[in-house]
């Protein structure tokens, strides 16, 4: 990635949260600019070149949604992650409808935020049109929707294939349970039980069972990561 693609604009009015955000993003190798108000965000955003912009929904001067709309009107296409304390379904929908690319509810785990920022940053890269995805000895045929390891077919239900595809596309990156629900099931809801874990567990048995090495790893307290050893 070029330097420009590692630049992030964080719009957050609470100084401590902003500080924590900047710190954790910087630690992860991003170059972070901070705006503490809507107007400052608009000024900084106009200079362009950001890979991802995170915007707090409630700002002291201008509403976060308005800021984002303004960005879109100004032709700034960088993906936007809306961070909100409102956390209500309606606001989530409203945020996405106004041109937000993803939505995160306060308080969030920084690992989750990083995972989402990573995913958004990747989306703004050129999308590669591939028909076969490979990680280690795992191959996903996106046309026939089949998976195999070392040439041996793995029987998957359509949803299981989608889940594996999402993990493969985010190879090496942490994917949270909420992200899986959102992108694999298209659901914005918070299941009280560990259904995602159970689901991933089933896919994992099919993919990693009786293999030389595991591909799907659990990241404690956050989610999952698919990666080949070495």
């Amino acid at each position, binding site marked *: 990635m070029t330097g420009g693609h590692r630049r992030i604009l964080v719009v957050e009015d*609470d100084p401590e949260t902003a500080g924590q955000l900047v710190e954790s993003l910087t630690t992860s190798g991003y170059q972070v600019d901070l705006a503490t108000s809507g107007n400052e965000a608009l000024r900084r955003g106009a200079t362009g070149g950001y890979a991802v912009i995170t915007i707090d929904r409630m700002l002291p001067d201008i509403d976060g949604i308005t800021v984002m709309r303004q960005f879109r009107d100004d032709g700034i296409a960088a993906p936007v992650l809306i961070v909100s304390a409102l956390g209500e379904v309606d606001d989530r929908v409203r945020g996405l409808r106004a041109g937000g690319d993803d939505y995160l509810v306060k308080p969030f785990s920084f690992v989750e935020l990083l995972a989402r920022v990573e995913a958004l940053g990747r989306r703004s890269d050129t999308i590669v049109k591939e028909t076969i995805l490979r990680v280690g000895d795992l191959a996903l045929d996106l046309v026939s929707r089949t998976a195999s390891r070392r040439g041996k077919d793995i029987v998957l239900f359509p949803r299981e294939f989608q889940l594996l595809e999402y993990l493969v596309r985010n190879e090496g990156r942490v994917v949270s349970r909420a992200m899986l629900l959102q992108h694999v099931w298209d659901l914005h*809801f918070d299941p009280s039980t560990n259904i995602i874990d159970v689901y991933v567990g089933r896919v994992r048995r099919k993919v990693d069972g009786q293999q030389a090495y595991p591909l799907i790893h659990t990241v404690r307290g956050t989610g999952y990561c698919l990666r080949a050893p070495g």
Partner: protein
Amino acid sequence: MLLAKTLTSSTFRLALIAIGTFGVIVSAIFSYVYLSTSAYVRSRSDRAIVTEYLSLKSTYERSGRDGLIALIQERIADSSFADNVYILADPSLVTLAGSLRTWPSTATAAEGWIEFRAPEPLPNATTRPLLRAMLGTFPSRDRLLVGRDISELDGFADQIKTAVISCVVLIFVLAGVASILVTRRTVGRIESINAASRAIMQSGLDQRIPLRGTHDEWDRVAENLNLMLDRIETLMGEVKQVSDNVAHDLRTPLTRTRGRLEKAYHGHRIGEDAKALIGDTIADLDAVLRIFSSLTRIAQIETQARRGAFRTVNLVDIAGEVVELYDAAAEQENTRLTVVGDREVLVTGDRDLIFDAIANLVDNAIKHGRSGGQVVVANENIDGKPVISIADDGPGIPPCEYEQVFKRFYRLEHSRYTPGNGLGLSLVAAVAHLHGARIEMLDNSPGLKLKLWFSAPMR
């Protein structure tokens, strides 16, 4: 329908009571009028008889039997005394003079009043009239009877009676009709206000009860109800504002706290013990936050702010997605999770919320059902109504707890130690209420069957 409501309405009952009371009073007044009128007429007639009797008696005393016979004959010939009846009889009751040839058999007393049917028609008449007469016996034991035809008096009384009765009947009929009409109007107006209120409860607080512009008491009732609705809407808005602010104000410090904990967790110089402690704290914090957002969400659904997202959706599709999502979880419990029923069951609603409700019910069924048992999700159209039911074959719920389980944080004794926060069914209830759906709990013997009766989709 409206007539039935009219007849059972309280206004109509009041009207009936009023008509009853009024009717009794009117009947009493009219009876008094009737009785006093007929008594007056009768007493006038009696006075005329007495006067005539006394005049005849004095003639007898003055001019003797022959003088009286002459006078009686004179009177009979005189047309102005045509209403009168006279009989003068000797002590053996043989008529000496008079308008009747025979002494009435009932007139046995020496003196006094009698009423009798004439044994023969009077001169110049064809019918036998009813007579009232005064009897008297002179010292010579000759007897005199002076009477009048009272048939006409009776006819007059009858006429008054007929008039009074028809008046009373007419009043009752008119009052009855009037009260039905008035009640009907009232009930109709109340019904329209009721219908508007129901519609407002169903579809949200942005509607108002329509006014007729007549500025009558009903318009005032509607105006006041509308004012109340305005107030409720304002309060709801304020509550929402407050909870939004609370949400914001609570979440900001919690975000900082979580951030600090996370930073500590990922710190380099930290022991395993401390790390585990911090990890548990983060998990607890997340649990608190989950409860918090569940409560906000239920409250938000209950304020009915989400009807904008209503579309026609197929319950079968949603149920299919839920079952697919929970398939693995069911498999883990060795539970057979299946969808049965119709292929298309359409409802008007919010897909995400319905998904959430069904997911909660399926989650409960798997969690509280029998391990190795089965959970059946059935979609049906019953009498045009879309119905979804979720049934397990576990221990079920005692019927006395059916109502309780929808309360926030309520947990059954035997499920106190299974994961969950006691908010799932409250959310289901809120979603059902938003959609105007009815929840029915049934004994699946064994197990619990919960049915959601939606209303037919809007076309």
